[in-house]
């Protein structure tokens, strides 16, 4: 039974054998030994041994394939022969390409099927027994690929080796290389499972051997197996690096000469470089993983650590960091991929590990690494700002007061970073200055040939100048020194544009003198190699102002800083002239060139900004020449600001600090206006005119105790001082012809109200704070007096006595006068200077009333008149106003039925002031002018008498400017009354009034002596 079973087994075996041979892969039947022997002979000799003729390439290849299938011992020879076949095909292929395919596919197509056949056989073998075939075939294929690609690299159709894509396209379109590539991929896919290191090693070796021409293979393979290839390539590179490094007694020596000493690292870089285009993510991950694992070798971080062996050896993970540095140094791509995330990885625990690891290294090796790291940082095209911040953060000494974003690092780590940072600065310094030396030093050699060297780190930081400046200004211990140094380097590197930006930023961001000093330090350093820095910086600031890129706070700070800079000039003048003085002067002159740009800032909505602006303007020198348009604009702005400042002072007067600031603003404004007025006749006129207009302006009137006659409560409005209220008068006039119910007279609307409706209701206006009003009036007068007395106009010489106030300039006073007239009395009819007889005044009742109301509404007019009077003969130009006022006063006193003039206080005051002004202005001789002293003691009627005398005098002796003569010893214009008619005629009524009230006026008699 056993036997039977065995028999059946045997049958099974034989059937199995039969099955096997039938399922044998070669289509042809198995050859006999004899045939095989013949076949081998044919193969060797290339001659068909049976027929005795030469074999064609194709037949020869077929023969080889048959041998490959049947005679294992021929394997090597067959593969070697096939190399030739592949080579032949590639040659033919390229030849065809070169011949532009005019011969069609003659030879190549013949071989193409053979190649297809070979490919089929090989891939079948690999599929059936990968372990045996894959190493063999992969070695063959990769070597052949290398050989083919370098052999045919010089062909005309072959693209240059640096255009990888074209190369790839060309070779993949060639059947031979494509099939080799496919075969190789198949092998690799099989081999990666059990010996990944070996196959990548082989790939790298070949890549080194056939360097640039073989790159397309690596690129293709790499993109087919990105994950494995990347990590393998890295592992191989590290291993190689490590072994070479230990041989060379110092790992970093190779960093210096990048020659052939480390053959593999070059191709590692090349390969990864190719892969970086599509797989930069995985490359980055791998590199970072390597870094992390080198720090924590024992941690089971990577799932693949079992298969990769590099983690196991301590020597390897010690070499990992130098290796990574080296890689990064050789390939900007890789460096760029890693650098961004590396900084994030360097958290304190990692830093500690790193330090622990590096402590073990010898000194010179560390130095080399440091040098390399510095080189890398300076060459890093992106992320420089983050690196810098990290370094500065880590290197800043721990402090109790300032706690940085990260907790205080370990002391050793800190020192390391400190050292790194200093070396970096030194390195950059060398780079920057050598560079400019190279270009400037010998222009004959380098100017044309060598463009300026680019330092990517600085290149990138150029866009972070603002942040750098802000960091610097924090004045944190050592940090600001580093950063300041860096700023200098950056400015030198980047040239004027960066330098001005830096300066500009510093000027904008500095908040106190110490911080501002950094700006001057920067300037001092840079001034040696750059001219015109400050004007450029100011220009830039102005540009920023125009584009509204600065917020109010920054704007204010900028203006204040500029002001401080200019003011330092004054201080320097007093003290010893330091290096800043010239700079302060430069700032001053630069600012003065842009005054018209700063002018609008006076009216900035933010009080702080306008305050800062006025400070700057008040201290900045004025330009030598300027266009009238700019001047006018500026003066308008300055005046407007003045009133604004007054208003602010009034509003903010209660609170201490703001009040002080407002007060200072007013002072500055006064200073500005006076300096401005002194600048030129034009500005004087403009300033004075606008001051007067502004003082009378509705919006500002209340500052000076003015009351605007607001008649909004009345049913119909009356003509008013202000044109905008005139609309209602227009209304009335429109209704004039259409209205039916006249109440008897056309003139039913009067100033006092509408007939039949009683007096107009006066609105209660809030009386402003009298002391404030007085202060404001004082300020205004002071400004105007200062403006008017300044020597800008027709160059009157300064007085000999400095204590004596300067005389009011006549021209300036005339401007005030004219402005007053224009504002008080818009009706120009009867505007001549000479006075008519008193009776004619009734023709101008309307205007006169208007004038009086104006004076009522604006108490500030009298002081202004006094100013005008002081600037003889300017008061002459106020003739119309004076006349109008006097006429209404005459009317008042005539109609008054009071017992004493004191009973109408305003009129009394107005009368007194008017007469005294006319006396001061020398419209009246002193005898007549003195009558105002008597008014308070008289009855209204008597006042009228005296005023009539005044009127008569003026009518007879018209207020003409030509009657005034300049007296050089006084520096004033004076009027010689003796040339006019006899005064006595007009003094008679005075005397009679005196006479009548001698009891009360006795003490005044001497005033009226002729």
């Amino acid at each position, binding site marked *: 039974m056993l036997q039977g079973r065995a028999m059946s*087994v045997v049958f099974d075996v034989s059937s199995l054998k039969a099955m*096997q041979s039938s399922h044998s892969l070669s289509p042809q039947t*198995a050859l006999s030994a004899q045939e095989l022997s013949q076949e081998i002979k044919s193969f060797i000799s290339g001659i068909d041994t049976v027929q005795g003729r030469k074999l064609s390439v194709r037949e020869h290849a077929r023969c080889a394939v048959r041998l490959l299938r049947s005679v294992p011992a021929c394997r090597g020879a067959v593969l070697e022969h096939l190399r030739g076949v592949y080579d032949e095909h590639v040659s033919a292929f390229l030849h065809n390409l070169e011949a532009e395919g005019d011969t069609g596919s003659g030879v190549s197509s013949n071989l193409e099927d053979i190649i297809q056949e070979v490919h089929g056989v090989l891939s079948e073998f690999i599929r059936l027994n990968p372990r045996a075939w894959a190493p063999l075939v992969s070695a063959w294929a990769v070597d052949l690929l290398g050989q083919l690609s370098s052999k045919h690299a010089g062909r005309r159709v072959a693209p240059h080796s640096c255009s990888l894509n074209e190369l790839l396209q060309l070779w993949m379109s060639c059947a031979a290389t494509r099939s080799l590539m496919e075969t190789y991929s198949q092998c690799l896919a099989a081999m990666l499972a059990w010996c990944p290191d070996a196959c990548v090693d082989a790939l790298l070796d070949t890549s080194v051997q056939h360097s640039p021409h073989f790159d397309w293979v690596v690129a293709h393979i790499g993109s087919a197996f990105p994950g494995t290839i990347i990590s393998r390539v890295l592992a191989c590179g590290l291993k190689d690096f490590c072994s070479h490094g230990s041989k060379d007694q110092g790992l970093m020596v190779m960093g210096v000469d990048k020659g052939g000493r480390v053959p593999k690292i070059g191709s590692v870089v090349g390969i990864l470089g190719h892969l970086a285009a599509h797989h930069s993510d995985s490359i980055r991950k791998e590199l970072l993983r390597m870094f992390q694992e080198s720090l924590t070798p024992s941690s089971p971080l990577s799932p693949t650590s079992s298969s990769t062996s590099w983690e196991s050896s301590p020597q390897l993970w010690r070499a990992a960091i130098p290796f990574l540095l080296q890689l990064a140094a050789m390939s900007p791509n890789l460096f760029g991929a890693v650098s961004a995330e590396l900084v994030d990885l360097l958290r304190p625990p990692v830093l500690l590990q790193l330090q622990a690891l590096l402590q073990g290294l010898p000194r010179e090796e560390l130095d080399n690494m440091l040098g390399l790291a510095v080189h890398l940082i300076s060459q890093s095209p992106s992320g420089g700002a983050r690196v810098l911040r990290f370094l500065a953060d880590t290197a800043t000494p721990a402090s109790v007061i300032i706690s940085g974003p990260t907790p205080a690092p370990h002391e050793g780590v800190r020192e390391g970073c400190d050292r790194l940072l200093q070396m970096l600065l030194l390195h950059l310094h060398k780079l920057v200055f050598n560079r400019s030396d190279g270009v400037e030093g010998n222009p004959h050699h380098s100017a044309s040939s060598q463009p300026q060297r680019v330092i990517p780190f600085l290149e990138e930081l150029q866009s972070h100048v603002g942040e750098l400046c802000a960091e610097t200004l924090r004045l944190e211990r050592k940090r600001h020194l580093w950063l300041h140094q860096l700023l200098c380097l950056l400015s030198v590197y980047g040239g004027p544009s960066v330098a001005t930006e830096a300066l500009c930023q510093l000027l904008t961001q500095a908040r106190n003198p110490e911080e501002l000093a950094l700006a001057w330090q920067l300037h001092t350093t840079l001034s040696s190699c750059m001219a015109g820095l400050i004007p450029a910086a100011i220009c830039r600031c102005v540009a920023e102002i125009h584009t509204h890129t600065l917020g109010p706070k920054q704007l204010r700070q900028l203006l204040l800083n500029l002001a401080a800079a200019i003011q330092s000039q004054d201080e320097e003048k007093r003290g010893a002239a330091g290096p800043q003085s010239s700079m302060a002067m430069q700032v001053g002159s630069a600012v003065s060139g842009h005054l018209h740009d700063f002018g609008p800032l006076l009216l900035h909505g933010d009080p702080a900004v306008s305050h800062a602006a006025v400070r700057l303007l008040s201290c900045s020198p004025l330009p030598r020449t300027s266009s009238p348009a700019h001047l006018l604009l500026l003066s308008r702005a300055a005046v407007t600001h003045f009133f604004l400042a007054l208003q602010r002072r009034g509003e903010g007067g209660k609170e201490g600090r703001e009040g002080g600031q407002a007060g200072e603003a007013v002072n500055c404004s006064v200073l500005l206006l006076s300096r401005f007025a002194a600048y030129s006749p034009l500005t004087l006129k403009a300033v004075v005119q606008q001051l007067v207009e502004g003082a009378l302006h509705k919006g500002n009137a209340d500052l000076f105790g003015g009351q605007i006659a607001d008649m909004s409560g009345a049913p119909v409005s009356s003509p008013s001082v202000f044109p905008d209220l005139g609309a209602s008068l227009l209304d009335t006039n429109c209704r004039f012809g259409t209205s039916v119910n006249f109440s008897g007279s056309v003139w039913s609307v009067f100033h006092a109200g509408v007939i039949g409706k009683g007096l107009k209701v006066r609105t209660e206006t809030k009386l402003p704070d009298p002391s404030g009003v007085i202060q404001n009036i004082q300020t205004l007068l002071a400004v105007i007096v200062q403006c008017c007395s300044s020597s800008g106009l027709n160059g009157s010489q300064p007085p000999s006595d400095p204590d004596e106030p300067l005389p009011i300039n006549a021209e300036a006073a005339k401007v005030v006068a004219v402005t007053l007239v224009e504002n008080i009395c818009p009706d120009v009819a009867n505007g001549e200077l000479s006075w008519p007889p008193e009776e004619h005044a009734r023709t101008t009742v309307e205007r006169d009333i208007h004038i009086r109301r104006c004076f009522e509404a604006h108490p500030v007019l009298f002081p202004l008149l006094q100013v005008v009077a002081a600037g003889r003969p300017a008061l002459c130009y106020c003739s119309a106003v004076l006349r109008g006022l006097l006429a209404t006063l005459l009317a008042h006193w005539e109609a008054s039925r009071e017992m004493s003039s004191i009973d109408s206080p305003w009129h009394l005051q107005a009368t007194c002031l008017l007469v005294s002004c006319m006396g001061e202005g020398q419209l009246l001789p002193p005898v007549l002018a003195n009558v105002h002293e008597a008014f308070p003691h008289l009855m209204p009627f008597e006042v009228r008498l005296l005023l009539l005398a005044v009127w008569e005098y003026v009518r007879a002796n018209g207020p003409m400017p030509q009657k005034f003569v300049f007296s050089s010893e006084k520096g004033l214009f004076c009027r010689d009354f003796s040339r006019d008619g006899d005064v006595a005629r007009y003094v008679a009524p005075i005397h009679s009034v005196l006479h009548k009230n001698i009891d009360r006026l006795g003490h005044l008699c001497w005033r009226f002596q002729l």
Partner: protein
Amino acid sequence: MGDIRQSLLPRDVLSAAKELLYHLDIYICNLVQSGRQPPQVDAKTLELVEEFILHAPKDRNAPARRMSALQELQLLEIMCSCFQEQSRDTVRQLMFSALFSLQGNQADESRMSLLGKLVSMAIAVGRVPILECAATWLQRTHRVYCVRLAQVLVDDYCSMVPGSVPTLQNIHSTSPRFCCQFITAVTTLYDLASEELTPPLELLQMIVSWIHDDPRLVLITFLNTPLSGSQPISSLDVTPLGGLVRWCVKAPLAYRRDKKPALTNGSTESEAEAGPLFSALHLSVLQVFMLLPNILNEKGLFGRLALLQMESLAALTSDLSRLLDQADKHAHTSSAETHVLSQLALDRLAQALQVAMANGALLCSREDLRAICSRLPHNNLLQLVLSGPVMYYNNIHTPPLTFSPHSAHSPIASHPTHPAHAPHTPLATHSSSHPQYTTQPFMTGMPFPFRPSH
């Protein structure tokens, strides 16, 4: 012979090798004709061979000359025809050994590699003389190298080139001697100790079919070799019997173990295919044992030459007990199956022991057997064998207790020091009494001459 070096030096690699071969042929012919005994190739010539054929670096400075694969193939082809055309056996042998006998130097690596290719090619193109020479080489060389050669051939024909198994299969007809040595080497190589050391299925099928077709095949070397003292130490066994017994006994457990780690279809399939093959092989082995008494008697060696040695048996039983222990440990799930397989292994062991002892292939006492089998678990058949009837029933020609214990244990016993006993004795009278055992079914009821009657 040494003086031709200067003329060889300027030649290219291939023609230098060709020329040297030519000169070597002449030289050896002269040597043989001169009748000097023993014919010995001098050292100078060996050096030339190493330099110009094997391309061992002569000294460190000289650049190593290498042949391309094509040139090597041409050389191989020339060698093939050279051996083929040489009619005199002695010359061939001398030449072969001049080329390929190991010298223990650097050149041995390239020698082995060239030899592997040559033999592989000879198999492919059926060059009998080379195979004969290789068979001799396999007899004389240390087993480590023999195993390497076998490995090359197995790789070439069983794994690398699919469909080339039939070519290898042919060697049993072209050169049975080589085939026998090949089997010995293969069984030495694959001791089933691990997965790598498990023979490929194709190889197993081939060997099974060879032995099944011709059981005498395994004895050919033994039959054709004059047992002389020149048998080198550590060479292969004279017969593959020991290795084959090991295969059959260990197979059930070894294949089972293979299945364990990877439950892929492939391994179970191979197990399913391999199981019957080993059964058949076991049967064949037993049949070969039964051929032995006649042959041994013819040679006058019965009871004096142990073809199965105690050492290898002891190693086998200890391996087996280890495997059984392992099987027990891992047999939580399929203990029934495990039990069946262990019993199969033990059964086979018992059968082999019994048959070997009975046929004079194993020379030892039951005591010795009990000693080496003491650690094995219980098996009925083994128990019977171990405690069985005395062995002088085994052979009527030999008086009992002829075997001294020392002859069973000392290597001297397996290689008798007296070649005087070796000469072929006339054919045993029993040879005719064992008609056609290959076709004779082994049935329990059948009378069996060597079977002790109970």
